[in-house]
């Protein structure tokens, strides 16, 4: 608790242990290593195609400044030129002939100079190329992918919440014949990851006629053992009196579930919802296997397909990667604490 107070106390003692310094060093390095790559991605996503190919890369998204000069229809690129007399001037380049560039002073268009290109340095300024974002959404199917991802995530999460909470309700509130078997079934599914039943689930989906449909992505993972356990654990803590009171109030079992237990289990449902959104938004292997037509790609599959192409258009790819990051970033900013507690309590991910 109260780290600041403790820190002060330590300082009053007069010395820091070397481990304290090592710890801060480790954490500082961590910040660079963990945040750095994503910051780099975001910065890069605003660069022009040309400056992405530049080596060494510039840190910030820069692009060459252009000026309109009287008498020239096109805007001209601006350079810092060192003149013969050693003077430095900002000049616009009209054309380049071999190693000599013909330059003009934007302030005084009548004066022209001939400067060796070696003595020119481009004048660049910070500029964010937003077309990296808008173009792929228009030209390529990314809008479609985005919509598919949103659809899959929303519907799958709703189904997951509904059927998992129903099962959790049954397994937490009732005593009935076959309860042990039902529990064993749930535990059993916990031990069977999708990776080992990829092929036969594909068969089931084929039989259902769902290949290349988004339902093929939604349905197989809708019932999750972790979800059932999480909700059941929470529902077990609800006072039994409430359920009995509802029963005395002539509530049907469905009404008890829907009007008493569900509202009261809201915190656990919220945790499951967050997890489900994360799972679905990020899901990769199964959609990769079952979605083969580009119209039905989710964002993750779309990104993967895009990067696999021969001429990867990194400017678009990076921008779309950032787009796919946005919901996750929002979740992180607002709900990081709850997810962390959820993980610490349940060990699920």
């Amino acid at each position, binding site marked *: 608790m109260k*780290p600041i107070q*403790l*820190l002060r106390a330590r300082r009053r003692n007069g010395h820091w242990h070397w481990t304290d310094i090592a710890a801060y060093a480790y*954490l500082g390095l*961590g*910040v660079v290593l*963990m*945040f750095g*790559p994503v910051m*780099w991605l975001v910065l890069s996503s605003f660069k022009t195609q040309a400056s992405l*190919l530049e080596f060494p*890369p510039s840190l910030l998204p820069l692009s060459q400044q252009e000026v309109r000069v009287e008498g020239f229809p096109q805007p001209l690129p601006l350079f810092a030129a060192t003149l013969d007399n050693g003077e430095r001037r900002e000049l616009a380049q009209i054309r380049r002939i071999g190693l000599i560039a013909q330059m003009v002073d934007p302030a005084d268009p009548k004066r022209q100079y001939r400067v060796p290109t070696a003595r020119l340095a481009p004048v660049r300024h910070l500029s964010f190329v937003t077309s990296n974002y808008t173009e792929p959404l228009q030209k390529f199917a990314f809008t479609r992918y985005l919509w598919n991802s949103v659809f899959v995530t929303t519907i799958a999460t709703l189904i997951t919440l509904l*059927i998992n909470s129903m099962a959790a*309700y*049954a*397994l937490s509130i009732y005593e009935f014949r076959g309860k042990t078997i*039902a529990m064993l079934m*749930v535990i059993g*599914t916990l*031990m*069977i990851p999708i990776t*080992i*039943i*990829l*092929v*036969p*689930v*594909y*068969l*089931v989906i084929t039989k259902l006629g769902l290949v290349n449909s988004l339902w093929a992505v939604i349905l197989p993972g809708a*019932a999750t053992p972790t979800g059932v356990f999480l909700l059941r654990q929470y529902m077990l803590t609800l006072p039994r009196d409430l359920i009995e009171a509802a029963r005395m109030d002539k509530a*049907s079992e*469905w009404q008890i579930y*829907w009007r008493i237990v569900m509202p009261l289990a*809201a*915190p656990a449902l*919220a*945790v499951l919802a967050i997890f489900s959104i*994360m799972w679905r938004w990020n899901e*990769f*292997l199964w959609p*990769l*296997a079952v979605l083969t037509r580009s119209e039905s790609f989710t964002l993750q599959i779309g*990104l993967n397909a895009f990067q*696999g192409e021969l001429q990867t258009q990194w400017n678009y790819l*990076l921008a779309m*990667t950032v787009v796919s*990051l946005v919901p*996750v970033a929002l979740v*992180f900013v*607002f709900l*990081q604490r*709850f997810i*962390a507690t*959820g*993980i*610490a*309590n349940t*060990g699920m*991910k």
Partner: protein
Amino acid sequence: MIDLPDGIGLQAVPTASRLARLRRSGATILGAVLRLIDRPMGLLQRLIGERRMVYVFLLPNLAFFSLFVFVPLAIDLAYSLTGGESLFPSQRPYVGTEQYAYLFDCGSFFDPASCRVDHFWRGVANTMRFTVFQLVSMVTFSLVTALVLNMRIRGRGFFRAVYFFPVLLSPVVVALVWKWILQRDGLLNAGLTMIGGQKILFFVDPGWAMFWSVFVSVWAHMGFYTLILLAGLQAIPADLYEAAQMDATPRWRVLVRITLPLLWPNLIVVIVLAMIRGVQTFDEVFVLTGGGPGTATLMIVQYIYETAFASQVQNFGLAAAASIVLGVVLFLLTLAQLSRTRSAS
């Protein structure tokens, strides 16, 4: 459990009353829809009795489980015992354990090149190598991070968030971020040339490709394990440390004699989970290296995926056989975990 605050970020604004009205009418509509379910459910209860309603609640979930887990598991077995190229088990000739024999047809199990299905065995070898490296570095780094975060650190919440956030990223994003940094003209090579080094083609060198696969995997998932360990560390009663302090115990001794033994149950969980996840590794590595160069980072799951879905001749039987071998391994690991957690609690 976890308490979520009501209405995150919802502030009383001038439009609050409109919002409230909207919410009320929304609630009315929702209520009407729900009453539509209430009625048939009530009738159903009248029909089958209160006691049997529990099965109605269980049914959807168990149906999903059966359809997408248990039936597939059975079909998996059927696939692995049949040959041919058809997707439908009824059209596949029974071949007994031929698929397994084919899979295990090796001159020496230590040399993938001597196997008929050499890609599978390369996958096994790579996965084992990957799992071991990943496990060691994952446990080391998450333990160190958890220990550091458990110290009296200023801004602990911030640092915890820093290490945690990659957990939320999709494997595709993780892989693309790093691919972008590690590519030939990427940030890392720029740094290398700046300090006078040579560019390295990380994805052309098998050793580097494996290194970065492990690195990226640790980078992405470390936060998850750190949280589990941190929870364990925070559960250790503070008075134990105070008692140790009274006895003037040196810090390293506190770590070795108090912290680590009490953290042991959480460490076991971390080790087993990291192992299970390591064996199943696919997505980050697949997007990052594509299994290359050559087969240097080809993992078992990628082999299964490609054999079944991405190769010219889709060999479902062989993929299923490989799946079942993988399943047995995972099952044993999970059992180990269950028995450990059982005995720990």
